[in-house]
């Protein structure tokens, strides 16, 4: 009796010892700023970019303006496109890597991760070098005589989508790889033995069993893609404004912190919905 009581007390002490630092960290550096942003989103901008502490829902009402609605819509569309392309490119890639023999498999995985060792800005500038009017792609195409005039690739939605897919592909490949690597390929043989051709055995057996990886990869690409601002800024120029650019612009250029906060909170709501979908499916499908 005594012993179990003191042990339980020991457990409790241990719990607080382990829990407190993390809780404090999260509370101070995550929840508090979030709360501040939430509160700010209901305040008003002063004439000099200062914040006037007066409650209003105007910031959210302003988001209903077609201009902003258009930005949200474009961001959503861009993020979905990026996610779908990443999935279509990432699945075969992850599959290929997962089926390689061991030393080679790790080398390939490393190659997927290596771009992370370079600064994201530098990598985006590298894409600009490729896509510029006098860039590598145009030079090659002109050299081959495929085109006469240089193509306008920079500052198009294509360039932005390309940059986003390039940047976030590893986030798709890694969870997919984890899922496919765990997948028992003898199940494909079983399906084929029972009369399913390659495509049907993929759809009926492999796809459902690697769904956790697919969902995780899609979330991991979708969330940063919808909030991206460096890529659309550099590759999309002024023509492609995404939520991330709008937020950045409001905070830094327009110095309208309350409206910027409202944009951020709205973005968070969208992301939360995506995450909710993930956990719903995740729970159902992860056996």
């Amino acid at each position, binding site marked *: 009796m005594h012993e179990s009581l003191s042990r339980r007390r020991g457990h409790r002490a241990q719990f607080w010892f382990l829990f407190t630092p993390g809780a404090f960290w999260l509370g101070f550096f995550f929840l508090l700023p979030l709360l501040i942003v939430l509160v700010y989103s209901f305040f008003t901008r002063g004439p000099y970019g200062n914040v006037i502490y007066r409650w209003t829902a105007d910031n959210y009402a302003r988001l209903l303006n077609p201009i902003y609605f258009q930005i949200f819509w474009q961001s959503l569309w861009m993020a979905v496109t990026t996610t779908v392309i990443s999935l279509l490119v990432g699945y075969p890639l992850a599959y290929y890597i997962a089926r390689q*023999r061991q030393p080679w498999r790790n080398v390939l995985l490393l190659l997927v991760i290596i771009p992370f060792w370079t600064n994201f800005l530098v990598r985006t500038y590298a894409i600009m070098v490729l896509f510029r009017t006098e860039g590598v792609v145009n030079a090659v195409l002109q050299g081959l005589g495929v085109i006469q005039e240089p193509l306008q690739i920079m500052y198009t939605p294509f360039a932005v989508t390309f940059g986003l897919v390039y940047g976030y592909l590893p986030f798709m490949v890694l969870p997919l790889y984890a899922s496919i690597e765990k997948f*028992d390929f*003898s*199940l494909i*043989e*079983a*399906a*084929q*033995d*029972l*009369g*399913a*051709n390659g495509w*049907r055995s993929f759809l*009926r*057996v492999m796809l*459902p*069993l690697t769904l956790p990886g697919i969902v995780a990869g899609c979330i991991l690409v979708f969330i940063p893609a919808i909030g991206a601002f460096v890529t659309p800024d550099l590759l999309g120029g002024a023509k492609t404004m995404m939520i991330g650019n709008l937020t950045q612009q409001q905070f830094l250029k327009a110095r309208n912190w309350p409206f910027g906060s409202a944009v951020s909170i709205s973005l968070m709501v969208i992301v939360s919905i995506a995450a909710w979908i993930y956990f719903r499916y995740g729970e159902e*499908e992860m*056996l």
Partner: protein
Amino acid sequence: MAQSVDLSGRELRTSTALPAVEVREVTKVFPGPHGETVVAVEDVTLTIQEGEFFSLLGPSGCGKTTTLRMIAGFELPTRGEIWIHGRPMGSTPPYRRPVNTVFQNYALFPHMTIYENVAFGLEMEGVPKDEIRRRVLEVLELVRLPGMESRRPRQLSGGQQQRVALARALVKQPEVLLLDEPLGALDLKLRKAMQLELKHIQHRVGITFIYVTHDQEEALTMSDRIAVMDRGQVLQVGAPAEIYEAPVNRFVADFIGESNLLEGQIARLEGERALIYVDGVELAAHRHAQEVQLHQAVTFALRPEKISLLATTAEVAPGHVSVTGVVEERVYIGTDTRYMVRIGDQAQLVVRMQNLTHQDADHFQPGDRVQLSWDPAVARVLVE
């Protein structure tokens, strides 16, 4: 390996029907991990009759699974050809072959219920829904798993999963069912029960079974015929009794059941009978129409249960031969007692005597001088 007596004990339907499966001079070479090549199956030829329970038996790594996978279509032969019901398979993919497989690890679909698992193969054929339902329930009845339809595979025991794997393949009514060590993961008691049940099911459905196992006892009890394999080659094909009583070489004699195998030279030849000089004694065996020369190095093979132990004063049965020896060891194992008897400087013979009466078990003691007698016709001369 000429065998005058037909030991098969079962007549096979060879007359009219085409063989269910023919493996013709098939070789399979794999690339090894270090750039070398691995010959998994070497020049194997088998003819499996319709309705037969045919086993591929051999130690781990001898090429059983590879042979089965080539019949199923998961691997293509490097050389040679697989024929199923008179049709050459060429590179026909698995989903177009009239065979189904029960996998060693069952390979049940974890995300599907038992019903969905069993229905899968019929869905792929485009069988109407209500017929699927009827056939799935029927086959689950056959493997004695009714009421499990809505469970998931991981909610079943190993034995039940095994039955689902069987049901999933049987529901397709294949011409040939391939089973790769299907009982390997079950405990002994369940395995014995399932052996009988599988045999029973095979009789009921009348499908050709090709059964892979490394368990010689399992192969002997279940099969109509057995192919004994070693290092990618088929050494002997025959009915269980034939394989057991008339092994063609030392490997088969050693692998199937227990055998006394003593190396020696031919000392004398008297028609069918050969006397083999082993370690200072001459042991009599029949050569079963094999050509052997005087002084040729051969192996004397004799099953322990074919030897009788007698007191030195006792009369040897007519037609039997005998040698004397000293009992070195005695192990009581219930149904019989196992004696280790020294007959030469090195040579020993294992003898199994059935315990028919209460006293049988302690008839001979270690240290006793005894006579060992046997019918030379059941002892064999093995060449090479």
